[in-house]
């Protein structure tokens, strides 16, 4: 067996290994990206619930805070922004720009809601309103769910990113259209946003 043969045999074996490896990596990437897409769906459900509640909340508040139009409109506007942010992010889960957009819109909504609740502090009647109390309670519990779903999503996104950057997959990821990391979704919870101004004093 001449040396050329041996080299050719070696190359052949290498090609075989590479093909098997590439198939494995492709399946691994598809599987993990579906993983974080499914995890995002959980956030999606909870955020939608939250956005559905907000118009009701504003409606109730209007009766007491009719003259505080600006604050109420800011909440609605921020909510609508967040809805479209969510739509964009749900269409492309993990996409950095879409996730950043959602994150920003959520932050703005959290801020607007924070101002609304701060304002409500001065209106004991509003605070004592049963519907308002129910909605506030629902909103809080939904926020806990969002935080929980967000953690699951971020963990799944991190698993994808780690796999994508690990040794053999990093060679193929770009080839198969997985050149980008999945973006983690970060936004401060409303509680944290509300507390933020206090730090200034």
């Amino acid at each position, binding site marked *: *067996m*001449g040396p*050329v*043969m041996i080299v*050719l*045999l070696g190359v*052949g*074996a290498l*090609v*075989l290994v590479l093909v*098997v490896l590439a198939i*494995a990596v492709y*399946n691994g990437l*598809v*599987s*993990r990206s*579906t*993983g974080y*897409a*499914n*995890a995002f*769906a*959980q956030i999606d*459900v909870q955020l939608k619930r939250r956005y559905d509640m907000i118009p009701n909340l504003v409606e109730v508040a209007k009766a007491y805070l009719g003259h505080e139009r600006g604050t109420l409109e800011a909440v609605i506007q921020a909510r609508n922004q967040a809805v479209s942010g969510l739509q964009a992010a749900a269409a492309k889960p993990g996409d950095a720009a879409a996730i950043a957009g959602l994150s920003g819109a959520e932050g703005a909504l959290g801020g607007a809601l924070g101002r609304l609740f701060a304002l409500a502090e001065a209106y004991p009647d509003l605070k004592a309103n049963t519907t308002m109390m129910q909605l506030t309670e629902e909103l*809080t*519990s939904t926020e*806990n*769910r969002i935080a*929980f*779903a967000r*953690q*699951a999503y971020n*963990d*799944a996104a991190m698993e994808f990113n780690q796999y994508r950057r690990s040794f053999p997959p990093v060679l193929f990821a770009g080839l198969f259209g997985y050149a980008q990391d999945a973006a983690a979704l970060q936004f401060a919870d409303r509680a944290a946003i509300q507390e933020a101004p206090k730090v200034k004093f």
Partner: protein
Amino acid sequence: MLDFFRQQQEARRRTRQLVVLYLLAVALVVLFATGVVFGMMLLFGAADLHTPSFLTRTNVLVLSGSALFSAALVCIAGLHRRSQLRAGGRAVAHELSARRIEPNSTDADERRLLNIVEEMALASASPVPPVYVLDDEDAINAFAAGYGPSDSIIGVTRGTLKRLTRPQLQGVIAHEFSHILSGDVRLNMRLVAMLFGINAVALVGAMLIEVAARSRSSGKDSARGRLILLAGGSLLWLIGSVGALAAGMIKAAVSRQREFLADAAAVQFTRDPETIGGALRVIGGTIGAGRLETSHAEECSHMFFSEISTDWMARAFATHPALKERVRRVLPAWDGTWLKAPPPPSRDLDRIHPITGQRYFQLGAEPIALVPPPIIAERVALSKPDVFAQIDKARQMIDGLDRSLVWAARDAHDARALLLAMLRPSRSDEYAAWSDAIAGILGAPVVKQATELAAALDRSGPEARLPLIDLTLGPLAAMSPSQYQSLRQAVQVAMHLDGHVDSFEWALRRIMVANLDRRFDKAEPPRARYYATSGLFDECSVVLSFLIWIGTPDPEKAAVVLTAASKALRVGPLSLVPQNEATVERLDDALSRIELGTPAVRRSIVAAAARAVGRDGTITPAEAEVLRAIADSVRIPLTSIVAHARS
């Protein structure tokens, strides 16, 4: 219709024969490949036949080297494929890009499917599996994937979700449950892995041919070398291809037997041949009904409910029997017509009132107050023949449960609180320690929710606990591994708070760990070390004694029950472990060894445990919980005891 037990026995017997045949084919391929590799070595001069004794050192070395090479090739390729396949049901669903249906979805079609899956799981005493949907597939098809009930998932196409009636959908889901419960998915994975290994032999052969053909070097020596490579490569390719062909045909034949088995089981589960028969007739009446678009489908073809491609290859390779044959087996009096346009699905059973969360059909009617005791355990233990005709009872059971508890169980976030609510200490002066422990690990909101749920649990009684635990297991699979670790830790801490682990606390943790550990940590089930029940004599004593002491405090009665159970196990008289020595620690120890038994050993022990529990004719919730925990821990679905007792 009632000969489904005989049909199942027949399918099991045929499967065994085929599997032996399959192993034989694999062995033959390895043997022939060894011969070819050795022959090539011989021609290249590495080995030599013209020595006084054939068994010279070099020859033996080369021969064993060739054998090793062939076997290694088949094994490595097979193992690689297997490691991919055994990553669990979720990995398979994700590879098919399936969307997970939220277990608390209120979409009418999704709710209907989820309800059917929940009912089937509760009726067969298995955890509720996560449900996936292939949104881009309009065809009617479904699949189950996973290594065992604890890591399985069920997937359906959008067409299945929309185009079948409730009974038909029930038939399809029952069919898939049969695949999960009878271990078909596992069997198929092994066959696929071996097939992949055989294919690798053909692939290497093809490569050698390629190398020989492309070789540019000239000279007498290399011409000879080329010839040898060409001949050897062709032979390997031929052996691999013929082997793969034969093995593929056998695998397809096995697969077809399992399909008949699952169809028969669907009739058995639903007690109505029109369910599965109807679904098959709808598929037959729709052009290209089973066809799937996704490119991944081909390699998973064996998993699906019906043949996935319509361009019928040779019948020999079909993983599913012909539709006509399948319909005729479940509906012997079938007139040969297909169902064209399926009637619009009736959703009365599944519509829920948005506010009360009650099903519509129940509004106005008295809610069913009585929660039947965990159904399957009862049926198995009392060896009632109609074990599976329980789906309607399962539905009544779910409807009889407190709505807030059911909806909590259907949501990963709330299900954690529900499990911890079940572990709330009975004495109110211990509440504080319980809240602090949970708040420290999972946060204060979980404590608040768990406290509310604990109140609802107190109103519901102990019968509600096991079905609720089953309902949580599917939704909890959506957590991330780190979230699961926190929950596991919280459960561990909460159950030890009062310094004493009672049988329910023990069972809850066991069931959770047995069913969720395998979803998050893909550890291979341990290899079997005990091949006979006699090697597990003391362990059997501990397990059976523990169960018996739950049922009766009377030592004399306990001794009688144990004697009867030992007879069933055929291990000689077991010794009754005194009540104060039958602790959960010893039970844990015993189970960790029983887990290392062969499936037959484990099954016989679980069967004996079921018999011990059912001997007095009644089953308390505590007995059912511990029996279920034992069965799940040693990976024996309770339904399989009944199925095997009959075959």
